[in-house]
């Protein structure tokens, strides 16, 4: 992390640059979702839009985490803490995926048979 005045002044320029990228990234996300000629995949919302939108969001979130939250040069303890949180999230998402095999998603149970 920047600690000397010179390093901090240099970091400020990086923060401005990253801020600009975040603004642009947001605009790109909206354009991809709303402008027909930027609509990749099928017409309307589909898996491609989902992947694209979440990829841009993940890229933006990474910039916030690594630059603004200084994760690019943190101590090991922080990485362990953050990684454990992410692992738990992935586990939760995995549980959701497992749940898709649950009968609750089976139309049979709603169809009145």
């Amino acid at each position, binding site marked *: 992390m*920047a*600690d000397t*005045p010179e390093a*901090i*002044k240099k*970091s*400020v320029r990086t*923060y*401005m640059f*990253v*801020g600009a990228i*975040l*603004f642009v990234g*947001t605009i790109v*996300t*909206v354009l991809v*979702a*709303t402008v027909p000629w930027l609509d990749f995949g*099928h*017409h*309307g*919302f589909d898996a491609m*839009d*989902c992947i694209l*939108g*979440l990829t*841009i*969001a993940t890229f*933006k*979130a990474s910039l*916030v*985490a690594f630059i*603004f*939250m200084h994760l690019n040069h943190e*101590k*090991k*303890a*922080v990485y362990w*803490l*953050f990684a*454990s*949180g*992410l692992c*738990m*999230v992935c586990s*939760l*998402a995995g*549980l*959701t995926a497992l*749940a*898709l095999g649950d009968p*609750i*998603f089976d*139309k049979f149970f*709603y*169809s009145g048979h």
Partner: protein
Amino acid sequence: MEIPYVVTPRKDTGLFNSKIAIWLFLASEVMLFGGFFSAYVFLRLGADYPWPERTLPVLPGLINTFVLIGSSVTVVFAWASLKLREWRKFQLFMGITVGCAMIFMVLKGVEYNVKLHHQALKLKDYSVVEGHLGVESEDGKPVLDHKGSTIEENLIFVEASKLTFDTVRFYKPWVEELSAQAEHHHSKVALAADVTAITKVGQPAEVIAKAGEPLSVELLNRIQAAHLAARSHNAANRTEALRAEWVTAKAANPGKKGWQIASGVNIDMAALAPTLLGEISTVSFSVDPPAKLDFRPRDIKAAEGQSRLRDDTVVDGKLLASPMVFHHIDAIDFQHLVMKAKEKGIDPEVAIENSWPMKNSAFVRDAWAWHQGEIKKLSAELLEAHGVGKNGKPRYVPTHKELYRIGWKDLAKMAEDHGRAKLSGVDAAKEEFFGPNYEARGDETFPGFSVPREQVGFASKFTPAWNTYYAIYFTITGLHGLHVIGGALVLAYYLFFGKKMYLSNPEWLANRVEIGGLFWHFVDLVWIFVFPILYLM
């Protein structure tokens, strides 16, 4: 007492204490929001109704995203200013950050307000209309209830002649409400007959309340007290009698298990009757002359002749016409109807033609006919732009939502096509925030719409009750909003009360601001996912 490691790092972690604490907290926050995002995926994949894709207005969400990103930049600038010992710059950047938080919450408040006042109605045939309800009026003036408030045209009316209360379950605010309503209609609600009961063993029945006594919570409380005392006394007597029966039965059946003799153990109610007191489980009041009482749909199970409230109060009387009246409708949605029709193997077009709105509203028929024309145009455009696939069919076709939903922008476009006013500039921008502008566009664009009560399937404002999409939307954005408020309060504290610490130990304040900033960046990070997921997908 000196607090250790507020400026210097610990040797084992390499971090000052509050930093390790905030990262622990953020790791738990990652799991919290991760859980909600998982819930979102689960709800969306498991939805048994057409998921409202891209249903929220993008502009307020986009502006809020810019506001939060901007505040993320300024909060890190504020931290850098402290590191460089530039107090005035710190004040400026932190002030902007807190200001951004306020703007965010104001915009969020506007968005919520629009949702909470926008009515949706699913008819029994699964067609959906959206809009705003009117208010009850007479001679062009709004009718006011006993509290002086306007009455939304979504009430159930009963010409009540008798009210029967459950003496235990009656809900006090409703008793007062019914009394006040009857008084408003110049009707008297009074006990229909003397309330009598045996209150002492061996004594004749006593009059607890006389016929003609007006309805009040106090009166019901008095009857309830007598009822509960009698019920308690009777329960104790029955238990005592049953205990005696068991003793006798066990003596008569030595060696047998309890379950083997249980069927033969019964209380002799005839013998017990003289020792019991009179219970008064219900009490009836006459309404004279019968008064038109109104009830919110969620509070009453309405039926011809006798309706029942949620607290088991029975309302005797004629069920009056109680249509749900939209002052303006701004969307007609056949997506759910089509989904249901396909499940039953019915042609969607036939199902739509036979739907209640199509059969009973010329406006809906016109809108649908116009919409069909628009869909033809869109299909042609897609065909021209993308051609046909290997199977000989158009590669791209209109979406389910485009095919079967006529939203407020479609209705506005239809009106403009028919030569009606087109909004521009500030008015058009306002519509992106507040939804359709009924006043500017007029009744021809967004006309009234009345649905008889028997056609109402489910009605709700755009609240978590309407569907799981709004449930998860309010949960995630509400929780995020609370984080914004919490973070802004902490940052505002540093802004307004940090000077003393800055003068005594500026590095400590810088560390504190860094911690507050880390939380603020996390709030921004969550929104970076919330925006595309809830607003754009």
